[in-house]
């Protein structure tokens, strides 16, 4: 990893430029430094004013060596930050470091506010594009047909008058047709059957839907976005939901797991679609909720002592009834099932929702279709001179694919006890 970073830094910075410096800064420095405020190390926005370039080159390249050489400023700095050790960067060339310094001077260029359209205009511009299948079109079409119908009727009456017949009233006509239809037993039987079936289907659908909370998307106490974490930043699901591999519960991460990253990332640099700082350079109020829970003082960068910690009360989305035993480890670890198989495209969810029905039919369909991981030593390993389970399964099912159902995955007691 470090090697990769070093190679990246060498190749990326052929000459001194603030753009290249930005990349290098993000890759090497950002976990401890910010431009405008103190993180683990000092704010670097005005570092070139505080120190000479020569001093900075030595410090950044290898600060321990530099300190050992007896530089008073370097040792004072080290003491000021209570001995927090800064890593050495022997792989950075002078140009690289100069690029980084150039970036610290220039900072993040802000996109010109005028370039972005006003929010109201944005919404108005989007509306017609979405109007392709707007219900209004159907209403207009319907009204048009109705007008046509009336016109045709009027035309027929006019023709009748021309022929000297009595013009008929529209209502009388409808009445006549209705009477004919009512008198027609076949039609009535057909209609009754269709209505009855439709009614039964509606009731069936209603009843079958009871307890199914597909698409359940409660408002959570923190506006946590899986899209940002798992999608854009590619954080592995198991990083936060670590117990999914070991336990029946996937586990909701404790606040201390959040703090592994959010000790450094406080959301103040988040930009919105138009490139503006989303929170105006302040800490994200959502991330501050984690700080409030665990008692982190972002100014002093310490956990407050004696703080009464308040757990975050998440709303549970997937509510399997108690009578069904589900074990994440079995599926994630033994069955090698992707999280997305059941939880859907979590990496695209701004707000998490229930993707699957979580009905028993849904479970056992999967058990019917999914093949077991026969290479697992539990199946493949022979013990005490008996044939391995894999061998026995092949003996019994021959060339058939061996699904979870074949090893008893549809039996009641596998999930209900």
């Amino acid at each position, binding site marked *: 990893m470090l090697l990769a970073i070093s190679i990246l830094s060498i190749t990326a910075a052929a000459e001194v430029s603030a753009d290249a410096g930005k990349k290098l800064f993000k890759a090497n420095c950002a976990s401890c430094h910010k431009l405008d405020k103190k993180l683990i190390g000092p704010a670097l926005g005005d570092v070139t004013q505080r120190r000479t370039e020569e001093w900075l080159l030595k410090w950044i390249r290898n600060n321990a060596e530099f300190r050992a050489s007896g530089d008073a400023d370097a040792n004072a700095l080290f003491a000021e930050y209570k001995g927090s050790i800064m890593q050495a960067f022997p792989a950075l060339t002078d140009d690289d470091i100069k690029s980084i310094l150039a970036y610290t001077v220039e900072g993040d260029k802000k996109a010109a506010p005028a370039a972005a359209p006003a929010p109201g205009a944005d919404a108005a511009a989007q509306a017609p594009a979405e109007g392709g299948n707007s219900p209004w079109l159907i209403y207009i079409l319907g009204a048009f047909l109705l007008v046509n119908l009336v016109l045709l009727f009027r035309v027929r009456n006019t023709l009748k008058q021309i022929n000297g017949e009595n013009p008929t009233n529209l209502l009388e006509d409808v009445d006549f047709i209705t009477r004919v239809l009512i008198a027609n037993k076949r039609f009535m039987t057909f209609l009754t059957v269709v209505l009855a079936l439709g009614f039964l289907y509606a009731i069936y659908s209603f009843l079958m839907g009871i307890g199914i909370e597909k698409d359940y998307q409660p408002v959570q106490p923190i506006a946590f976005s899986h899209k940002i974490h798992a999608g854009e930043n590619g954080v592995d699901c198991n990083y936060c939901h670590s117990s999914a591999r070991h336990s029946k519960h996937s586990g909701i991460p*404790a606040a201390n797991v959040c703090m592994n990253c959010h000790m450094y990332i406080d959301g103040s640099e988040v930009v919105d679609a138009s490139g503006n700082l989303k929170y105006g350079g302040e800490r994200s109020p959502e991330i501050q909720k984690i700080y409030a829970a665990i008692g982190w003082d972002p100014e002093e960068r310490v956990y407050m002592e004696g703080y009464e910690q308040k757990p975050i*009360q*998440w709303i549970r989305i997937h*509510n399997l009834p*108690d009578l069904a035993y589900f074990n994440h480890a079995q599926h994630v670890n033994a069955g090698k099932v992707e999280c997305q198989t059941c939880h859907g495209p979590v990496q695209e969810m701004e707000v998490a929702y229930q993707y699957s029905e979580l009905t028993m039919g849904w479970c056992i369909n999967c058990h019917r279709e999914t093949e077991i991981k026969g290479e697992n030593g539990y199946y493949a390993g022979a*013990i005490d001179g008996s044939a391995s389970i894999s061998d026995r399964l092949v003996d019994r099912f021959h060339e058939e694919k061996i699904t979870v159902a074949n090893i008893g995955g549809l039996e009641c007691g596998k999930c209900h*006890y």
Partner: protein
Amino acid sequence: MASNKVYWKSFDQLANTEVSQRLAENEFAQDIPVDVFLSEASSSDSATSRRDFLKFLGFSTAAATLAACEQPIIESVPYVVQPDTLTPGVPSFYSTVYTDGQDYASVLVKTREGRPIKLEPGDSARFNRGTNARAQASVLSLYDSARLREPSLGKKNSDWPSMLIALKKSADQSRAEGTQFVLLTSSVFSPSLQAAIERIRQGYANFQHVEFDAVSQSNTLDVWESLTGVRALPSIDLTATSLVLSFGSDFLASSMAQQVSSDYAARRKPGSGMLRHVELESNLSLTGSNADKRIKIKPSEVSASLAYLINQLGGSAPSVGLRGDLSKALQSLAGEMKSAKGKTLVLVGGDDANQARLAAALNGLLGSFGTTLRSDKPVYIRRGNESRLANLMADLSAKRVGTLLVAGTNPVYFRADFSKAIAGAKFSMALTDRLDETAMLCTAAAPIPHFLEAWADYRPAAGEYSIAQPTIKNLFNSMPLLEVLGSLSGDLRSAKDQVAASAASLGLDWIKTLHDGGSTVSSGAISGAPAAAAMAMAASIKLAKPSEGLEIALYENALGAGFQANNPWLQELPDPITRLTWDNYLTMAASDALAMGFENETNSDGSLDGSYANIKVGKRLLENVPVFIQPGQTAGTVGLAYGYGRSAAGKVADGGGVSAYALGILTGSAKVEISKAEGMHEFATVQLGHTMMGRRIVNEVNLNDFVSDPSGASWNEKPTFHTIDGLKSAEEANLWANHDHETMHMWNMSIDLTSCTGCAACVVACNAENNVPVVGKEEIRNLRDMHWLRIDRYYSSDMSKDRAAEENIGGIEMYAQMEEPSESPMVVFQPVMCQHCNHAPCETVCPVGATVHSREGLNHMAYNRCIGTRYCANNCPYKVRRFNWFNYITNEQFADVNPSQDDFGRMVLNPDVTVRSRGVMEKCSMCIQRVQYAKLEAKKVGQPIPDGAFTVACAEACSTGAITFGDVNNAKSAVRSAKSDARAYHLLEEVGTQPSVFYLTKVRNA
């Protein structure tokens, strides 16, 4: 004269008893208890009209429909900072020590999300490893809502600082005034506690520490102290024993029974050299039921019998006349003992000084010291001294005690006269787990932690050191005795620091010792008892003649001394012998009952009633003690269990039974006068039939027959059926297609009836593992017990089919006599749980497919599918299915008995097992949660499941290894070799159910 013949259906009807009248009035005895079902006591006399009822019905239906559409919002709250040793959903295990004032055992505690939920034997070979019923149940006592929560001073709520100040002030004042400062405890065998007490002694010249055991061993301890110089009982080593002669010693149910019964079972593996066990006792005890030979004697005959044996074997003891048949039986025993010299062990029960002396002399004479009776390896868990307690009571009455600190014991309940004496203390404080009989009479009461909440260390026996660690934070505002004493002596270290210092002083590695639960340490040389001194002691005693009158012998059942009386699992655990629950009673021989007019009656609904007796020992009277007629009880004796008759233990225990301690018998037996009292007592029993009625339910064989026919053809005959293809075994002749049991696992269970002692630890373990509901005395009386695992007890009968044929006795008369147990019956125990039939009768009759077969040989029960027709239970030949007649966890009728009805009691529930609701059937699942867990663990590490990697709760709890569980598809598994044993047979094999559970024939060394 045409017909004035009267036909009568039973003797009851002929005698026109109350029962037969009631039966005649109402043949189908019970009305459906609608008001009970509606679970409102007042519903029968409420003014609710039918119209109102329909209104409520309509409203509740609409409400239920609406509620069903909207799922409630469920929160999921993670830790703020998750402990790194804990993963939600994965259990953690801790070694610790189970002690409750009476028992001692090394155990492993299973915790889930920080809650202890189960005690297991553990795997490190510490002293008395394993669990008995009380140890298994103790995890529920932790969550007893009757526990004392806050300190109280002068009946007012207080706090610990004020308590400690008040105690110190009183102790200092006593020192100044020259009155005594007394600490009263049960036996203390904790090095760190002994050190803390020593520090107090140094600060207070007026300090005294008095130890007493609820069930006293003081006289026996005096005898051994005078022989060895150490106040401790010798340990017994059955591995070196070939003949055990026990005089009323219930050694298979004692406080050290786990180790002893494990050795007992190991020495009783069928074959030549099998340990022989002869029991001479008055009550039919658990140990006596396991004996190869049982001789009925009275407590007062024990000394004379021991003296007789000593004289027979060449020793010298005062001789007293014995009844002829007894001396004859003893003579033949003396012969056996002679030939097993050095390998014989003589044990006595109770606490009679003469008996203890004579038994010691006899053991010395037989060369048992240092071999079977290890006085050089003493056990320290009993140290009580009754003479010091008597002195304390005298001092209290004379107001010579300024400060009395009672810790972890309950003298007012355990000792008849203590309630009067305690008033003499100027200041008294009870450190107690509940506001019990003693705490109520004390000036101050303060909670001490449960053993699962506290640090402690123990020295249970020579060479053994163990550490108990907390597995949960204190539930209540409690403080361990170590810290309370520390505050008096100015030692402000925490209990953990004190224990750590004690371990360090022994040179032990803290982490390793903690992990293993303890360590062996050097015990220093302890000289064994000299045989000559023991004999000299026996020769000098004076023996009285055996008494002619009635005698009472007190005994312990699963409740033990009564420290855990408020534990509903123990209260509902059927006594292994009498099969009664929630009670104690006077056990009485049938001949005595007949002579004195006591009766046991079975009612039309199957429940049992018994007459009341008043009993008098000396000047002490105990009224309205129910009488239970016990086969095997020595005529002229009665028995009564300790531990019941509480008045301030909590709602579970209070009012149940009578207190045997109130009789003031310290030696365990006494002369008694009994008179009949008015009324009948309602018993709650779980077994009505007492014999096997000539069927082969428990297969039994004599050792000689077993050895002479190893194939088992003569004693383990398999039922066969005539088919079109000739004779076929039950396994081959079947109506159904076979399941595929070869591909995956095939879980089987073997139960060795030779090893099973009937101790019932497995039953409580099953309750804890599987969230089995407690139903209370009323429901047990209705025969609606919910235990998934029961231990059937069968008595032998004097009548048999052979004898009936010989004596020309007709069928009806024969069966009537077969129902009657012998006066001196042989006893067998048989644990019965769901047999997991591979051709299960229950599966075929379930209309909704709620009970189905698995390809791993288990019979599954899907509670949510069950609609409660109970066809399955009716069709089960083993009667192992249990129906939830009520919602035991919410119905207020069970609020007093079911621990799951309060927030504390619910914490013990196993989160991996569904809590069943009303109207569904349940039964043994063969701990399917453990099976599934083991398979998952194997898949996680990518290994096949090795034999013995896991086992079910009952097998795990079994100290004797009677239950073996495993995969018969594993060629080398223990259960597979057991299945091919000549002793193996299936219960009711002729029914053709092909169970996955099988039994190993009981072999008796008779």
